[in-house]
């Protein structure tokens, strides 16, 4: 893509639309499939810990690195590169490879029923199941680029040199990076807030504290997106609180008190009044184009199987949609699917999609 002209001569509007939609397609990534996403969007996935935020990122990365088609089988991916900036430093590559292998198998088998998707139990300890299709698996894994950042300096250094890295990867692989995943954006929040913010050597020198770090991060991402259009997805761990627990925490446990939370702002969702505490500075909030809230629920999942199932609720906050989706994540070693259920106004319709 790179430096192709925005307008091509002698092209009708329809042709241009076709061209743009092929080069910059809309992505429907479950469970975010309510709102189509494309390059240039910056999505924030908010939720308490644990909710399935990293899982959503992993699924998006897998969709990106799978090819559209390979040896006659339709995999439905993009065949591009995915970059993962791990600020939480908790990424588990064995889980990623299990999920990728599972999706390859599923697509190859063609059907979406659970019976066909049985994978043999993984062997003891650290052995990963043998990839279903080694060559495809290896080529997909090589399109997944990963880096860890243990503090804000490393994160900023990564962003500053990302432009050259993106160019280099484009030359090596021949394809662009389509998604940039950040897990999670508020990771160094407390460390940066704790570092000194008084100015040194007069007023001309800035120091590495929360406000300057966040401003630089936003600036770098904006500049990068001008030259390398990508879909940016960032997770953010946030404290959910309904009215009870917030009052309680202020009264009894001083360890939880956030009286000095200068950046807090309560966001209430429409039907369930579930606020979450916003802590990222306003400059980051202005960068976000989409926001979705995910959280766990204790609601029973009625399908006969109770093991290895975690149920989550997701809700779009930006753009605000008036519905709550329910989805489950099942252990891929035992079962196969990531099923999404729609739930609107007490009428639940079951929509079973395996990815």
């Amino acid at each position, binding site marked *: 893509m790179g430096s192709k002209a925005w307008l091509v001569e002698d092209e009708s509007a329809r042709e241009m639309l076709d061209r743009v939609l092929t080069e910059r397609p809309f992505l429907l990534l479950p469970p975010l499939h309510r709102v189509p996403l494309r390059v240039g969007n910056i999505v924030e996935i908010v939720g308490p*810990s644990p909710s399935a935020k990293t899982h959503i990122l992993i699924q998006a990365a897998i969709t990106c690195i799978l090819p559209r088609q390979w040896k006659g089988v339709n995999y439905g991916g993009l065949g591009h590169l995915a970059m993962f900036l791990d600020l939480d430093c908790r990424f588990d*590559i064995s889980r990623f490879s299990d999920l990728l292998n599972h999706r390859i198998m599923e697509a190859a088998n063609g059907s979406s029923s659970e019976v066909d998707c049985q994978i043999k139990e993984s062997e003891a300890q650290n052995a990963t199941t043998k990839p279903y299709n080694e060559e495809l698996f290896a080529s997909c894994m090589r399109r997944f*680029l990963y880096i860890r950042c243990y503090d804000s300096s490393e994160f900023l*250094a990564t962003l500053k040199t990302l432009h050259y890295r993106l160019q280099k990867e484009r030359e090596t692989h021949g394809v662009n990076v389509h998604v940039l995943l950040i897990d999670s954006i508020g990771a160094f929040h*407390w460390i940066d807030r*704790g570092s000194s913010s008084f100015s040194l050597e007069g007023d001309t020198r800035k120091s590495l504290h929360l406000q300057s770090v966040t401003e630089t991060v936003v600036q770098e991402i904006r500049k990068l997106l001008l030259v390398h259009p990508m879909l940016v997805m960032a997770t953010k761990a946030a404290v959910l609180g309904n009215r009870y627990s917030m009052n309680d925490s202020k009264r009894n446990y001083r360890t939880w008190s956030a009286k000095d939370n200068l950046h807090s702002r309560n966001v209430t969702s429409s039907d369930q009044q579930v606020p979450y505490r916003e802590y990222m500075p306003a400059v980051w909030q202005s960068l976000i184009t989409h926001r979705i809230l995910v959280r766990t629920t204790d609601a029973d999942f009625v399908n006969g199987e109770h093991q290895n199932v975690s149920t989550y609720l997701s809700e779009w906050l930006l753009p605000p949609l008036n519905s709550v989706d329910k989805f489950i994540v099942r252990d891929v070693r035992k079962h196969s699917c990531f099923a999404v259920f729609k739930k609107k106004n007490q009428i639940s319709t079951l929509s079973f999609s395996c990815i």
Partner: protein
Amino acid sequence: MAPLKNLETEYPIIDSNFQNFCASHGIFSVEDFLIHDLYMLAAFAEQNVSSERLKEGITQILSIIDDMHQPWLNGMELLEDAKRNKHFLPTGIQGVDLLLGGGIRVGQLTELVGPSASGKTQVCLQTASNVARNYMMLYLDTGNSFSPQRIAYFLGKTNELASAQAKNQILQKVMSNILCHSVFDIFAMFDVLHQLESNLRCQERGGGCRIRLLIVDSISLLIAPVLGGTSTRGRALMASAGYLLKKLAHQHNLAVLVINHTVGSEGGTSKPALGDSWKSIPHSRLLLSCDRGSNVYNVSILKHPSMASGKAARFVI
């Protein structure tokens, strides 16, 4: 935060002219470059007399910044590293090992939470005695809970059929493999961990017997005193400690096990201490409880990278 002039010997392009130019924009060290807009700086350099040299200097700085972050890896390289280095360390407790799929994972930070007298230290000592048969380990003791007698007891239980001489040999080996440090505040822990980090880095080049397991019993006793109040320093220290532990675990292939206690929460239930900011730091969180009056323990998963929470197991120590 070394000043720029220290780089002059190694990179002659960063001469005094370049340093003055940077100083005029408030940049005195490489870290300052991280929060400045380098394209704007290059634009300013254009207007300067020696613009070419200045821009070369900026490019040199960018390549120095490129060394300041971790290396980029692709999926296959990560997977190779996981297969080769990130094994499971069996705790020796059958229920726990089955639940976790083999034991405590190398490269990850595992947290064990439980109310007082729920057997947390017992699990630690049992794990220590099991791992120390084959590897060295470091035990950071915050509450004088380390007990060599208990280690000897655990070893004796599992080697019932061995001869007295063999038992003694194993005991000697295990005891020499366990390094125990008492730390009573968080800064002492940082000291020990930084020392460990530099030792491990030296050892990596030289080979030799390396530490495989790090137990902190208990980290909440170190962090809880600095948390609270209106200062954010406590949470910053807690997050830094968490990241240091995860860095040690991943880069030097250690398994890290930390102990946390519980506090009361609304409704009379209990929840893990250290708050919501700590929740997202460990890889796995396990909840331990003890049936009253017996030595049967329950362990359940609060959070795990690849397993649903709620899975539980029982065991006897």
